[in-house]
């Protein structure tokens, strides 16, 4: 657990970047700091590895005040990923990943094996291992950045807007991969972003900060969407927060109707399209039992017939449902 207690950062020119911030970051979860620029989210993050020193207050990791440790030793035990990855341009990909193990004096074989394993883990082709960062795309560089941060298996990983400089499609991929990776590794991740959608998607907990470095609300995303504490948070989480809150509503089991004859299935029972006059209309998004209500509503909205298709894990169609069924599930 990382604990902030009345932490304040005031720059020599008098600017108050972080104002008496107190919060507890639980272990093994993703905590997101989000807010407009000037809200002190990056400053708060960087005070954890002491690349910025706080002015007053205490930050402790598992009960131990971080100022009791030598900053260099502290940093080697905390992974760090930034925008544009910040890879060392003069080192190959595998050497970049091996940076911290080398600093810690691991033997060469173990260092290299670990680095290669991590490259694979973050979804990079091992052919890229001997390339230099400049030969990689932005998304690939960011993956190397994550691998580098994880190399010495730190308990904590700090991520400062890591995905904001890549295009939306790659960003989406990287977010999905981070969630998948986190399910395996269970690190304590502190993630900074200015993008509320990213915060809601990735965070187990989200800290919304306002300009001037004051904590506005610290809550799980569903709580943030359902009960924003004030106008600032309400404005920041956006207009369609009601719709987005559906992401966190999982119906027990959506009651479905039998498959209609207009729905064309293939041999395995997977839906292919809707028969209409003389043409076949493509199916929309499909819904699986256990998905959120947002997925259910999306299936209805994208279907050409207004009926969403429910499928099992193998993709076989089980039944259909319309908006009335989704609305009923919403009320319950």
């Amino acid at each position, binding site marked *: 657990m990382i604990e902030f207690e009345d932490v304040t950062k005031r720059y020599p020119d008098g600017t108050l970047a972080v104002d008496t911030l107190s919060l507890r970051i639980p272990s093994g979860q993703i905590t997101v700091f989000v807010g407009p620029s000037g809200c002190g989210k990056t400053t708060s993050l960087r005070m954890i590895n002491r690349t910025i020193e706080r002015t007053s207050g205490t930050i402790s990791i598992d009960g131990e005040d971080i100022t009791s440790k030598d900053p*260099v030793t502290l940093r080697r035990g*905390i992974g760090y990923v930034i925008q544009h*990855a910040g890879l060392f*341009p*003069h080192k190959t990909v595998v050497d970049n990943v091996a940076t911290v193990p080398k600093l810690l004096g691991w033997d060469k074989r173990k260092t290299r094996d670990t680095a290669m394993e991590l490259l694979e883990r973050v979804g990079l082709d091992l052919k*890229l291992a001997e390339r230099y960062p*400049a*030969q*990689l795309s932005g998304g690939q560089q960011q993956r190397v950045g994550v691998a580098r941060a994880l190399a010495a298996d730190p308990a904590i990983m700090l991520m400062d807007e890591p995905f904001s400089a890549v295009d939306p499609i790659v960003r989406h991929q990287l977010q999905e991969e981070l969630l998948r990776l986190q399910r395996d590794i269970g690190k304590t991740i502190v993630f900074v972003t200015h993008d509320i959608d990213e915060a809601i998607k990735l965070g187990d907990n989200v800290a919304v900060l306002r300009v001037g470095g004051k904590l506005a609300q610290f809550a799980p995303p569903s709580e943030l969407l359902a009960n924003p504490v004030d106008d600032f948070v309400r404005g920041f989480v956006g207009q369609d927060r009601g719709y987005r809150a559906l992401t966190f509503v999982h119906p027990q089991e959506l009651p479905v109707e039998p498959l209609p004859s207009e729905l064309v299935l293939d041999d395995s029972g997977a839906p292919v399209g809707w028969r209409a006059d003389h043409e076949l209309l493509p199916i929309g998004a499909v819904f699986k039992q256990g998905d959120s209500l947002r997925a259910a509503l999306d299936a209805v909205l994208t279907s050409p017939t207004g009926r969403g298709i429910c499928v099992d894990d193998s993709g076989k169609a089980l039944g259909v449902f319309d908006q009335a069924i989704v609305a009923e599930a919403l009320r319950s």
Partner: protein
Amino acid sequence: MTWTADNLGLIWEQLREHLYLAIVPVILGLLISVPLGYVATRFSWLANPLIALGGVLYSLPSIALFIVLPAILGTKVLSTVNIIVALTVYTVSLLIRNVIDGLRSVPAEVRQSAVAVGYGPLHRLFAVDLPIAVPVIFAGLRVVTVANISMVSVGAVIGIGGLGELFTQGFQKDFLTPVVVGVVLSVLLALLADLVLVGLQRILTPWARVIAAPPVEVA
């Protein structure tokens, strides 16, 4: 040609002296410029005054420096130390700008991540900042090396000047051959030294060559 054949020993001796007088200051100058440049990047208010001071020192006429230095250093007028000190001053005054620019060429996010992964300040200088600064520092080293090779000859005026002494000899005897030999050899020496530096830089910066090439997409 007979003069050349008869004086091969002398020519070889002057060539070696010339190389020694030109290269030792480059090495000393580099050893001084790097820590000085490092200090200037840590205390940024020092950088501009240092670069300006370098400009002033470089504009001092070399003959004046060769003559004044023995008085300042307490060396004999005919001591090679005078030449070495003078050329080291020139080397530092040129190179300091490249070292500062080179260290400043390290991208902010690279410096930030070097600190965050746990490099101490000196370790970071040698493992991250200096390697990345190599192309900019080498651009300065090449200029300074060639300049030094040409400037050594001026030392002949005070009696120590490597190949430059062939010029004085030729002028005194009103005899062209030693002058031609001296000029050709200094040009060759400068070319050779530059080639060596280019090669050294290629070895030190395999990564710099790939930057021009487009990223490779592997799915």
